[in-house]
């Protein structure tokens, strides 16, 4: 549904987005991650046709956003960053306006407004003027605007920004549910949302895509992923005893001591070795040595670690190869 091809944007000499390519299919929720100023909002503004790209193209449902903007714009709903809305209108007035702009009128309009109000829990404030609303309600009002015409494509720029934990949960649930039938892109810098909502995630840094995959694949890029964490309640007199003995097991590449007291070690398997088998042999060894294991688990890798390593990592290292 969304085809982004080699999208570039420069503001004067400054390159904000330096060639971004990806597709989003129906039934897919794409998380768009990146540090502040990475070019997430600029990319979304180009996808929605608000700002023209310097180079590259965007197609929504097959329509080019620059060449053929109206049919393309009819297909998507958009929640811009900071969720702007007209402050002089009531919530219902604003949503009716949005519905009319989407070509709805009469009963269809009423139904659309009613459905959006219900989905976004706005019943309580429907007759209130937007400028009297709290930030959370304003945000959801703008969100309601984006789904009013039940679009096939949703583009959401930080949809959970400024919401309280309950509201965040509601919005995530809503996105996940809608993601089954729509193509959704949403940007965030909250990593837990990626696990909660996305079927795929893209990490963008300084205008370039640095990672693209399912949340599990991304987590797998953490060097801790697949390692075995063992915490002992009693047994090995000192951490290095445990380290030495475990290190002698087959298939162990490296043993890190995480903590001395209580003794916690992280065991990295060798290439080609399975972490689960390793956990078994550690368990057996513990039984033999009469160590008491308090915890033994396979580590999944953490998204925030991956995020940090790919967005900070290059900053120190390969600065030259990105221009």
């Amino acid at each position, binding site marked *: 549904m969304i085809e982004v091809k080699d999208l570039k944007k420069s503001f004067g000499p400054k390159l904000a987005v330096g060639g971004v390519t990806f597709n989003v299919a129906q039934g897919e929720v794409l998380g768009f991650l990146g540090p502040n100023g990475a070019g997430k909002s600029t990319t979304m503004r180009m996808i929605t046709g*608000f700002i023209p790209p310097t180079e590259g193209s965007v197609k929504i449902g097959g329509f080019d956003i620059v060449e053929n*903007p109206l049919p393309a*714009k009819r297909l998507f709903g958009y929640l*811009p960053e900071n969720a702007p*809305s*007209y402050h*002089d209108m009531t919530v219902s007035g604003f949503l009716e306006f*949005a519905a009319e*702009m989407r070509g709805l009128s009469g009963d269809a309009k009423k139904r659309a407004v009613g459905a959006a109000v219900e989905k976004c829990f706005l019943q309580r404030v429907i007759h209130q003027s937007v400028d009297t609303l709290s930030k959370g309600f304003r945000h959801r009002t703008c969100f309601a*605007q984006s789904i009013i015409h039940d679009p096939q494509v949703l583009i959401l720029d930080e949809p959970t920004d400024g919401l309280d934990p309950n509201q965040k949960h509601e919005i995530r649930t809503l996105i996940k549910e809608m993601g089954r039938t729509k193509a959704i892109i949403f940007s965030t810098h909250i990593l837990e949302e990626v696990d909660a909502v996305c079927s795929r995630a893209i990490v963008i840094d300084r205008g370039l895509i640095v990672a693209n995959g399912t949340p599990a694949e991304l987590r797998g890029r953490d060097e801790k992923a697949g390692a075995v964490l063992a915490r002992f309640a009693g047994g090995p007199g000192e951490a290095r005893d445990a380290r030495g003995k475990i290190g002698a097991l087959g298939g162990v590449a490296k043993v890190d001591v995480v903590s001395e007291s209580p003794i916690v070690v992280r065991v990295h398997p060798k290439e080609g070795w399975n972490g689960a088998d390793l956990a078994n042999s550690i368990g057996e060894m513990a039984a033999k040595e009469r160590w008491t294991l308090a915890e033994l688990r396979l580590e999944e890798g953490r998204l925030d670690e991956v995020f940090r390593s790919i967005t900070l990592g290059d900053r120190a290292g390969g600065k030259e190869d990105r221009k």
Partner: protein
Amino acid sequence: MSRIAPIKTIARRELAGYFASPVALVFIVIFLVVSGFFTFMISRFFERGEANLDGFFLWHPWLYLILVPAVGMGMWAEERRLGTLELLFTMPVTPWQAIVGKFLAAWAVLGVVLVLTFPIVLTVNYLGNPDNGVIVGGYVGSMLLAGSYLAVTAMTSAMTRSQIVSFLLAVVICLFLILAGWPPVTDLFTQWAPSWLVDTIASFSVMTHFESIQKGVLDSRDVLYFASVIGFCLFCTGVILRAHRAG
């Protein structure tokens, strides 16, 4: 969806915006009070004993100089400040539909103000026997004048996110449009410049065209002048908005 529907939707939203706040009401009251004051106290409407509204329309270019930029200053500046421009331009509308819709709504507010001056028409008809054709011409001219100032304001409003800056720029440009044909200014030129130059400069002025419509002659050239000012300024609005989005 037809091309007109989004224009109507936008215009209706804008109109609701004007009347949701006390702004439109305040402007209406101020215009009526001030134009009444000028007509009766300065133009001495009653003492003149003439059955026409010259003394009423005379002040419009000056009243509009403040009133119209005040009505239109937020047209685009406010959209930019609130970020709703992004919302509007990612909906399925073309920029010209948005520009025309907003312009028509603000123009309609000015039309309402003008319609509410009807008691003066009743008064002059009650007291004397005026040429009502000339009066209608006066109103048409006044409306076109207001539209021209408004188009200028739309343009300055697109330039900035500050309403005050937009207001001041519009006042300066409109003042130029007035003064270019104002006798004290044209007299400065007549002393040394060839008469064709004076005429050219004066022809840029709203005053010459406004006054000629006031005389009751609805000359197509005068209408064309106002239409071109409106058209040109709205076109510039579109160019400015596009340039702003292109960054």
